[in-house]
């Protein structure tokens, strides 16, 4: 019995234990992400049958009939609406990511360089918005931005403008809403990265003749690259597929793929087409990111950059 416990202990702390610990999240992702994705992929290859879609696999008269319909994928390339929507989603997500980075970097830098006893409080402030409902916060922007909203009313009362500026349902309101919502996701990884930076490296740069500004660009920024990448991914990926913010704050000029997905599923009730749009979106995001990650892993193999 004693030896059995001993060997179990060895297994748990050795390679077995490692496999076990890694496999738990892996299995979880397999069940809640990969399997549903395959189901969606299967639906994208099926055909509509008036109100519902036919199954890809049909068992009838002792024959398994597999019907793969690629019509949806071909359709995607033929209707320019889809391509435009993808591009526009990527454009708005990219713009949001860039603005988030511009806002978050100085903020995270300031936080990381502030006295150690102040940092938890600053961190708390970054996370404070999460304590109220996301929907409520986005909806509040509506109140602020409409033609008869707070901003326009104040500006008109002060005589700065004679008629309301159209802010609501424009690219401006959409990007504002997305930046507002996602900026903490940029700040946190950047902060985590900047706070552990060895400040003597900056002294070394100054000592070698770099001005503080040069030291920032030549040392701080390159060393925070992994934080920039992590933050950008955390903002960019959900932004591409964002539905709620475009729905509440967007307008006719702000085509987003989430909106098209919703229409295909619930307005047109065309599940195979909706599934196709979803699959292509995932591939469009994952493939470049995977390539990028691979390149990153190679260039910093074993490094701590």
């Amino acid at each position, binding site marked *: 019995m004693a030896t059995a416990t001993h060997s179990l202990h060895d297994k748990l702390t050795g390679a077995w234990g490692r496999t076990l610990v890694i496999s738990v999240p892996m299995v979880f992702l397999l069940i809640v992400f990969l399997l549903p994705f395959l189901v969606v992929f299967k639906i994208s290859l099926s055909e509509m049958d008036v109100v519902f879609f036919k199954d890809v696999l049909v068992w009838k008269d002792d024959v398994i009939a597999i019907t793969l319909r690629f019509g949806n994928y071909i359709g995607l390339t033929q209707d320019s609406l889809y391509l435009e929507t993808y591009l526009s989603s990527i454009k708005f997500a990219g713009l949001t990511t860039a603005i988030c980075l511009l806002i978050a970097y100085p903020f995270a830098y300031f936080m990381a360089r502030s006295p150690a006893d102040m940092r938890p409080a600053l961190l708390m402030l970054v996370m404070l918005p999460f304590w109220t409902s996301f929907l409520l916060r986005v909806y509040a922007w509506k109140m602020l931005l409409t033609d008869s909203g707070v901003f326009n009313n104040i500006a008109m009362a002060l005589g700065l403008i004679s008629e309301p500026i159209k802010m609501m349902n424009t690219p401006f309101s959409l990007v504002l809403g997305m930046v507002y919502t996602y900026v903490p996701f940029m700040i946190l990884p950047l902060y985590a990265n900047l706070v552990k930076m060895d400040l*003597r490296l900056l002294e070394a740069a100054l000592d070698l003749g770099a001005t503080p500004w040069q030291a920032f660009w030549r040392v701080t920024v390159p060393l925070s690259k992994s934080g920039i990448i992590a933050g950008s991914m955390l903002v960019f990926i959900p932004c591409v597929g964002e539905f709620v913010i475009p729905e509440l704050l967007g307008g006719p000029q702000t085509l987003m793929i989430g909106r098209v997905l919703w229409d295909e599923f619930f307005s047109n009730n065309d599940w195979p087409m909706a599934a196709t749009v979803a699959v292509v979106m995932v591939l469009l995001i994952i493939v470049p990111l995977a390539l990028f990650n691979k390149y990153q892993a190679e260039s910093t193999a074993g490094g701590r950059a």
Partner: protein
Amino acid sequence: MATNPNPKPATASANGKPFLQIKRIVKKFDDVFAVDEVTLDIQQGEIFALLGSSGCGKSTLLRMLAGFEAPTSGQILLAGQDIVGLAPYQRPINMMFQSYALFPHLTVWDNIAFGLHRDGMPKDEIATRVGQMLDLVQLKAYAKRKPHQLSGGQQQRVALARSLAKRPKLLLLDEPLGALDAKLRERTQLELVGIIEQVGVTCVMVTHDQEEAMTMATRIGVMSEGKILQIGKPDEIYETPNCRFVADFIGSVNLFKGVVEVDEADHVVIASPECRHYVSHGITGTEGMEAHVAVRPEKIAIQTEPPADAERDSLAEVGFNMAQGEIKDLAYLGSLTTYHVRLDSGMVVKVTHTNAARRDSTNLTWGDRVYVWWCGSDVVVLTQ
């Protein structure tokens, strides 16, 4: 104790003025004096070591030279120019940081070229200079590596090459070998001195390791509590310490507390409970004042028989500079043996005996009754 095998005499610069002049420099951190009115002159081509335990202010002094700390008051003149108001990146001074602070995202080549790029040096000149530096530290084959792919000793050489690349007027070394293990350190000390002398740069180093300071430096300043207590060549600091702190800090020492009995120009006699000390040189003091007699452990002879009169330096010393005691402890260290002898007065004296012959005839052991004695010319009288 290793001493610099080839001590380079401090040469005065062309105009006769010291190359680096530190004048009454003070640094206060909230009412605490980290550096307290230090005045120091360093000649061109010198390797000057600031030696002291942690918190003595040596690092603060070095950081003021580099420009990372602004002095509360005082002047620093480099080649006659006051550099106190200059930012670190404006000073013709480069530093080799403690544990190196190499840029982890840059290759060895780019680390060394970093400072040259900041000066806007043309690309081909940078390539030539970096090549020279890599040759100097013998790392040509490692130019494309990142710092984390190098051993500690190699990183140390990259750090040295990086700090020399801009041909600074003054090189600062902050605990240059602190991150290396003992064996490697010994070899690197002389290698480092060789490179610095080859380049001919004036150098100020900070260390807590007296052996490192004595091996590398032409002169040493011993610091304690923000003040420099003594400045001198390694042998001066060791053989003629000017106060009890320096005597105790550099190497080990036996301090006999006594009272001056006879004060003549050519000799003094100091009475302590252990014995009467005959010191064959004069001191600045008066009869009746309290003084400490410092005797280094290797200057003391240990034997079972009393020394023959003929063995003494001068017959005047007969009856002086000798005590009896019992061996309380001994440590055989290979090249030498350390004895702890409890004298009859109760004081414990440390004696080291070099094991020159393979079988030492003395063959002393625990509990042996022994005589310890020394020459009046080998002691230092400390009145501070």
